[in-house]
């Protein structure tokens, strides 16, 4: 039994004492499911710091529900919970209202809760060790310091230099250690119920990370990791974990409700002394007000900067556990088949997909713009080409599965040792799409665009390409302009006229082309 009933309390509805509510505290979930969603605004890999994605967390909790009205308090929900998204199901008569309280238990909120109330002041005599306790009423605080009224008169806390502190008779029930979600409900009879609490929480992200090994005859061994990041302080043990790929509409995350600061800053009157006096006091010297006062700083901040970027994934071992893909409307859901622990401030990697022989076409690409900047020069400088590995996302080509966006590391083989060829990023690719990888540029295959004498109606260019490889290579350059005339046949690729040529080993190729002047 994970729920306990706290001592009886009334007074939530002071005017209706007949509706006294019992407080039921649910400490932790029995089972939890986490579905991760990517940060839609992120284009590169997951950075350090607070992750920009989010997660749907579904918790199953067992609660001993008393008869009558009750307040159920859920403890241990995620730090980044967006309270407006909370859904509670499984209560016999539904949910009356849901409350998320952001007031946290701390020194300052205690003073705030006991303002104009009676507390005990405890002083210890440094010489004799004798402890004196006396009653006092908190007159003001916590901002700007704390003033106490006792039988003797009015005093400021922490200004005398004596060891002194406050003691409170109890903890106000509306202050909690962590931001808490509570719901009101009622039940005809006492019973044990299983409820599901689901909510969206900030501070999660996931991405695919690919490792590709370039094999013989231009085939790829493509292996994908699912990298899951939890940036919150709440871990989820043995969670049924899945991740959703695709672009969802998601508004900017609303600001999480914040309560008053729980840290107490005791301030006093100016406590400058003769020995500190001196001409002229530096304006920003240690503020006299701060000397002699002490600060109790209680921080509930998440430890920042602890998240390390996922290390470059090693070349894949044979995966034991692989995520299973299913359709979720127009999105793709990847389910980790076994429960795993999504720990706080941690990244986790699970195999996402593996395809052993993906056919790729290797080609070199140049770019063309019709501006003959080199009019005066004898010959413009040649430029390196972009290396392109092009695959079709089809079963017949050895692929044929949805590919979520992610970074890809491409490895080659050098005498049995893997060597990094380059890194490329991949956008979301559906089945049937073309997949292009750009691992780098080639200095061995170079091209030059030379402006030729033009007329009023035509602009003329010559494109030359050279190949320093000992084998033939394919070169491609798209020409997205109105072509009047070309010395070779142009193919249409994605609606753009493109010159594609097989450059012989250690050879050259060239194209003479004329564009219509549009005027």
């Amino acid at each position, binding site marked *: 039994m994970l729920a306990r009933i706290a001592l009886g309390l009334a007074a939530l509805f002071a005017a*209706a004492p007949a509706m006294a509510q019992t407080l039921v505290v649910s400490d932790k979930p029995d089972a939890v499911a986490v579905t991760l969603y990517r940060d839609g605004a992120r284009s590169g890999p997951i950075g350090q710091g607070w992750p920009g994605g989010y997660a749907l967390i579904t918790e199953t909790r067992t609660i001993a529900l008393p008869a009558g009205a009750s307040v159920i308090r859920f403890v241990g929900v995620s730090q980044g919970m967006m*309270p407006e998204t909370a859904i509670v199901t499984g209560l016999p008569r539904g949910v009356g209202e849901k409350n998320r309280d952001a007031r946290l238990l701390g020194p300052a909120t205690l003073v705030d809760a006991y303002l*104009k109330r009676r507390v005990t002041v405890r002083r210890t005599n440094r010489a004799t060790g004798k402890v004196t306790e006396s009653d006092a009423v908190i007159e003001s605080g916590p901002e*700007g310091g704390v003033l106490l009224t006792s039988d003797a008169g*009015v005093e400021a806390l922490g200004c005398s230099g004596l060891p002194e502190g406050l003691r409170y008779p109890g903890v106000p029930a509306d202050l909690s250690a962590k931001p808490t979600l509570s719901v009101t409900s009622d039940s005809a009879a006492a019973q044990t119920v299983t409820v599901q609490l689901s909510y969206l929480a900030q501070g999660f992200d996931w991405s695919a990370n690919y490792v590709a090994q370039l094999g013989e005859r231009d085939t790829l061994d493509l292996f994908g990791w699912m990298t899951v990041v939890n940036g919150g302080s709440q871990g989820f043990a043995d969670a049924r974990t899945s991740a959703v790929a695709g672009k969802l509409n998601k508004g900017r995350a609303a600001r999480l*409700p914040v309560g008053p600061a729980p840290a107490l800053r005791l301030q006093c009157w100016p406590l400058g002394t*003769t020995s500190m006096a001196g001409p002229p006091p530096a304006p920003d010297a240690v503020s006299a007000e701060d000397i002699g006062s002490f600060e109790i700083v209680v921080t509930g901040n998440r430890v920042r900067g602890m998240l390390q970027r996922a290390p470059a994934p090693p070349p894949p071992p044979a995966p034991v556990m692989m995520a299973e893909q299913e359709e979720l409307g*127009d999105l793709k859901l990847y389910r980790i088949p076994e429960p795993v622990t999504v720990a706080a401030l941690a990244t986790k990697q699970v195999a996402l997909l593996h395809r052993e022989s993906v056919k790729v076409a290797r080609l070199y690409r140049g770019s063309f713009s019709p501006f003959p900047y080199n009019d005066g020069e004898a010959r413009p400088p040649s430029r390196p080409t972009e290396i392109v590995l092009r695959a079709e996302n089809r079963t017949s080509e050895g692929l044929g599965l949805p590919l979520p966006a992610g970074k890809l590391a491409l490895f080659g083989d050098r005498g049995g040792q893997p060597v990094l060829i380059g890194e490329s990023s991949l956008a979301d690719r559906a089945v049937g799409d073309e997949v292009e990888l750009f691992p780098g540029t080639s200095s061995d295959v170079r091209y030059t665009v030379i402006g030729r004498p033009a007329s009023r109606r035509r602009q003329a260019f010559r494109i030359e390409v050279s190949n320093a490889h000992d084998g033939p290579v394919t070169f491609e350059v798209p020409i997205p302009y109105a072509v009047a005339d070309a010395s070779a046949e142009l193919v249409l690729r994605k609606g753009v006229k493109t010159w594609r040529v097989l450059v012989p080993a250690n050879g050259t190729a060239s194209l003479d082309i004329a564009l219509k002047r549009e005027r």
Partner: protein
Amino acid sequence: MRRAVWLFAAAWPCVAQAKQIPAPDKTAQGDLAITIYQNGQSLVQDVRTLDLTAGRTRQEFADVSAKIRPETVTLAGPGIGIVEQNFDYDLLTPYKLMEKAVGSVVTTVRTNPATGAETREQARVLSANGGIVLQIGQRIEVLRDDGLPVRVIFDKVPENLRARPTLSVTLQVAGGGRVPATLSYLTPGLGWTSDYVMLFDEAKSAIDMQGWITLTNNTGTTYTNAAVTLVAGAPSGAAAFGRLNDTTIDTPGTETSNRERLGDYVFYPLGRRTTIANAQQKQVSFLDVKGAAARKTYEWTNGWLGADSDPRSAATVLKFSTSKNGGLGDQLPSGTIRVYMRDRKGEPQFIGESGVDAAPMGSAMSLRTGEAFDVKGAATVVERKKLSARRWKTTMRYDFTSARAEAVSVDFAQTGLWGDVRIVEQSLTGERVSADRMEWKVPVPANGKASVTVVFDTRY
């Protein structure tokens, strides 16, 4: 001031003193009624019973909103006339107390660090600039100049210094006794919006929708046991700003719901009294509809007669109605709709959210949840030919692909037509819905492709 529920109620020590010092869960508030608008203003009405004596008397009102707009305060009651209203915000701190004590006498208690013996002395505070200069008898010294512990005890707290900003009213009372007085004021810091949970069942083409009112309280004050009414409608500046509204009202509705209304405002009274704690976000249900009809379509829009270098995903759109017949049967206050769908194991998964403007009952709605992974489109300029100095002929081809296992229909729109663009030829008959926009319904077979070719005659 603080309403609290006590875990250790029995531990509370001094019942006898409860008379002068209020218990922590006591509030000075009376019978509260709060009306919360969507522009961040709220009207608080607080009926308190005042114990008054006849004549001129000063009353302090504790536990009003810490963000109260004092100029909006009114107090009314039988036999009460208002002389003046004050809002004091000079806050009581140790430094302020010392400053106000300059010139007066305080008690100092010096503790001997070796023996612990205490010496009491009367001291006059001469100044509080940077340090405290005291006159004790005939000698002048600086407080704690030697760094040894010295307690300073003040006789009383001066007038006008408050722990919290305090509203006080001076009254002229005709006859004494217990008088019910209504205090009302406006305060910022309370607000509400609505959050909807929509569960979409694709197989049944149906949605279940729950609406929740989300109330936030950042006023610094807890409102105990209040009757709360929420008002939908825009007094001024209530429209959501900086949010993308992905839900559009296709056809505004013409039906009237049976919700309470006043002019163009709609009232959502909460069913029972509730306590709105400070720094709390509260949700209360106001709508629960099961099995309303909804269908899914795809939308793909080309902005002008340009080409795409990469195929773009179509938007997934849910179409539903707020009509009484076959719809949600209620008007929707503006808010956020979150859409869920069950996965293969039957667990609801989040598939996207979208802001929604206030929609009258009977409206036809389109909700965009996100981009479809598998349905894409790409525009290609096949040919652009100059007909004359100001006329061009543009041949566009639109290719749609679907990797889905069932046939889909894409609502494809070409915008940017300006009204002077004419269609010369089209491979599929479309509809010119406006001067600027042309729409086609393109059927795309399962795991297949479809193309539409359109020839435009444009003027420039």
